[in-house]
């Protein structure tokens, strides 16, 4: 049976995924949430680790369910010649192939770009690797905090004067996946215009580097090496996170003298408002550590959410620093469908973190949760590849479809 039409701007685009863990699947998710038909090649003998984390049932693994909505799953044992042949038939019916498997693995399976081009001349292939596809360090593999450290990003994140600890250890994979999705769609445009496919070589390290591009460009021009700088901002002061009651924190960003005066008024800090040291940005920056301490002394007794609201209404940008508990209970986010429900094989429905965009008209539907292993075998083998049922049965019996 053909699948229901989900609409969306990438309707009609078919993507094949040979991906694992986070960065690759996240790229697939982005494209699926824009309406592409994304088929994940899986095998019981070579599972995405995300189906194993959490320890229970491979079809209800929390990590897997949290990423792979609107993804189709087809089983193929790529360690068999017949399995590889099936993958190549799928390539022939696809627009884009994304992988983030180990360096060299695609080449060993004869699924490198030159080989894929023989199968489908206008194929777009995107390979996500820690260091990209080639080069002297291309053999290395790593984990998100490693590529953030290598990239130059970690060196900029730390409390002032301390060892730069970088962003949270989870940061990095998803952004690499997002950039892969972006590049794939750019390549679709190139193909629309010229008829030509291409190879996209994506480096996860460079993804992180690109996020500090302005700092690196400034270094290239001025020669001043940027440092881990806490919450320092050369053009705003106060600028930081301030302690509040019950262990909460409040972010405040003051860009003008008028905002500074409003901040003091809301805080009832007439002494700070009248302190000549703090009257100008230059003065506040010069005394910013003392100023931060003074402000922290005032905010510490207040409730973060309430103070933030009063500051915003006075024109001072402020927002509570949200914990996981705050985020899960955030009424605005639920109300806007930042979190939404999709189908779930065990529980009927499951909340997911929906796309960060809304489109009007013709948004892609995001309603179906992550697939069971091989849930779309019939669709792929019967509908797309057009194999007769007895041939599919034979492939299952021979564990080519496993």
């Amino acid at each position, binding site marked *: 049976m053909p699948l229901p039409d989900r609409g969306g701007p990438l309707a009609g685009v078919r993507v094949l995924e040979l991906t694992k863990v986070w960065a690759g699947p996240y790229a697939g998710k982005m494209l699926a949430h824009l309406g592409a038909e994304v088929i994940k090649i899986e095998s019981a003998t070579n599972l995405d680790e995300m189906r194993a984390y959490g320890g229970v049932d491979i079809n209800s693994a929390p990590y897997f369910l949290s990423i792979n909505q609107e993804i189709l799953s087809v089983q193929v044992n790529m360690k068999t010649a017949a399995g590889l042949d099936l993958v190549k038939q799928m390539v022939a019916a696809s627009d884009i192939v994304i992988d983030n498997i180990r360096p060299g693995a695609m080449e060993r399976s004869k699924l490198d770009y030159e080989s894929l081009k023989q199968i489908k001349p206008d194929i777009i292939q995107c390979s996500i690797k820690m260091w990209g596809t080639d080069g002297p360090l291309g053999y290395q593999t790593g984990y998100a905090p490693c590529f953030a450290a290598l990239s130059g990003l970690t060196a900029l994140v730390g409390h002032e004067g301390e060892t730069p600890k970088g962003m949270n250890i989870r940061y990095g994979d998803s952004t690499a996946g997002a950039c892969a999705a972006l590049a794939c769609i750019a390549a679709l445009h190139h193909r629309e215009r010229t008829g030509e496919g291409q190879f996209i070589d994506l480096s996860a390290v460079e993804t992180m580097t690109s996020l500090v591009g302005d700092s690196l460009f400034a270094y290239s*021009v001025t020669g001043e090496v940027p440092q881990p700088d806490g919450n320092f901002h050369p053009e705003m002061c106060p600028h930081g996170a301030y302690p509040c009651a019950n262990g909460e924190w409040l972010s405040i960003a003051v860009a003008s003298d008028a905002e500074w005066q409003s901040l003091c008024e809301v805080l009832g800090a007439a002494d700070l408002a009248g302190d000549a040291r703090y009257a100008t940005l230059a003065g506040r920056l010069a005394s910013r550590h003392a100023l931060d301490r003074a402000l922290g002394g005032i905010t510490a007794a207040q409730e973060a959410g309430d103070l933030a609201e009063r500051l915003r209404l006075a*024109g001072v940008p402020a927002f509570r620093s949200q914990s996981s508990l705050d985020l899960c209970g955030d009424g605005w986010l639920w109300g806007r469908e930042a979190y939404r429900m999709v189908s779930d094989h065990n529980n009927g429905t499951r909340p997911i973190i929906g796309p960060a965009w809304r489109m009007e008209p013709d948004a892609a539907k995001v309603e179906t949760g992550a697939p069971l292993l091989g849930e779309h075998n019939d669709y792929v083998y019967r509908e797309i590849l057009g194999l007769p049922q007895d041939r599919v049965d034979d492939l299952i019996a021979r564990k080519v479809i496993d």
Partner: protein
Amino acid sequence: VTALAGITIVEIAERPAGEYTARLLADFGAEVIKVERPGGAPTRSMGPFKNGESTLFHYFNANKKSVVLDLADPADRATLDRLLARANGLIDDHDEAWGAARGLTSAEVAAAHPHLVHAIITPFGQGAPLEWQIARPINVINAGGWAYHSPSETPPDKPPLKGAGRFLPDYESAIDAATCVLASLHRQRKTGAGQFIDISEVEVQLNRVDCVLDRMLAGEAEPGPERTAYDMGGPGTSFACRDGHVYLFMTSKSHWKGLCELMGNPDWAQAFREDWLEFDCTRDNVVRFREHFTAWIADKEKMPITEAAQKGGVAMVPVSTAADLPQNEQFVHRGFFQKFDHPAFGEVAFPMACYKLSASPVAIRTAAPALGAHDPEVEAR
């Protein structure tokens, strides 16, 4: 050959979020016409400066054209409509009141230019309370949770951090915005029709942590007030060495074995079970390991020691600084930094994209424009 040749994007954005969105598209070869207010874009007056020019502005606005329009002035506003009539896309990042005052709400743009792909990037998305819409990057990254949980293992008395540089959430939002715009332009090629795209910067922050936060939403992990709620545990962190810092990540018996060999199998290491990372990774053991390792690594140099580590299967890497990157052999090999003879700054190195496209590579072709440099060209259209 560029991927987006023939595509025209009008940018009325005035923050890095929107400017970087359009820069990503310009790098792919779209013609990006940047509309600047009289006096110039706000980012022109943000530092760091050299020779009186903003490095920030020049980074986010390379490959673009500049026209000056006062969008509150009816004649200039009509000029914008003429541009939009022939453009494929419009990029904005202002609050809703700004758009309403200039006839640039989603409904007005869709009515006047039904073919147009129109994206607006705002901190909380369309429909947020007006006073929320003034949020700045540090507010966004705090509202979205990454600040609260960064760095990993931050003690409760240390403030959440804004991330790297001033604009980390802007970059993240721009990636999603550019992705959506490109997807929508693909649809425009097929149907001739436009779309409105509403990007929430905070929701981008949430989406990037899907497999951590969603498990909490779904009740599979416990959300809480802990600063460590996103952490993974284990000994991985940054350590100071002789000439900077290294980052060590370890999760397995083979990582541990490799590290012990690298260190020459010191006596203190023998006190750990060989599988302690998997089965005995207690807080005490992590602390004890870090004490010893901190002392051992302190006099090592980051490049040779991490290279030796990699060869022994240990995921230890240098914490690269801005000065390290242009000399890094892998960055050099891939040509990540594009040398460019810049009219304002002389010889510079542009950090480029993380994707190398074999048929339509991205490149800096022109420096960021002088204010209004393309007024005559646009006037003639």
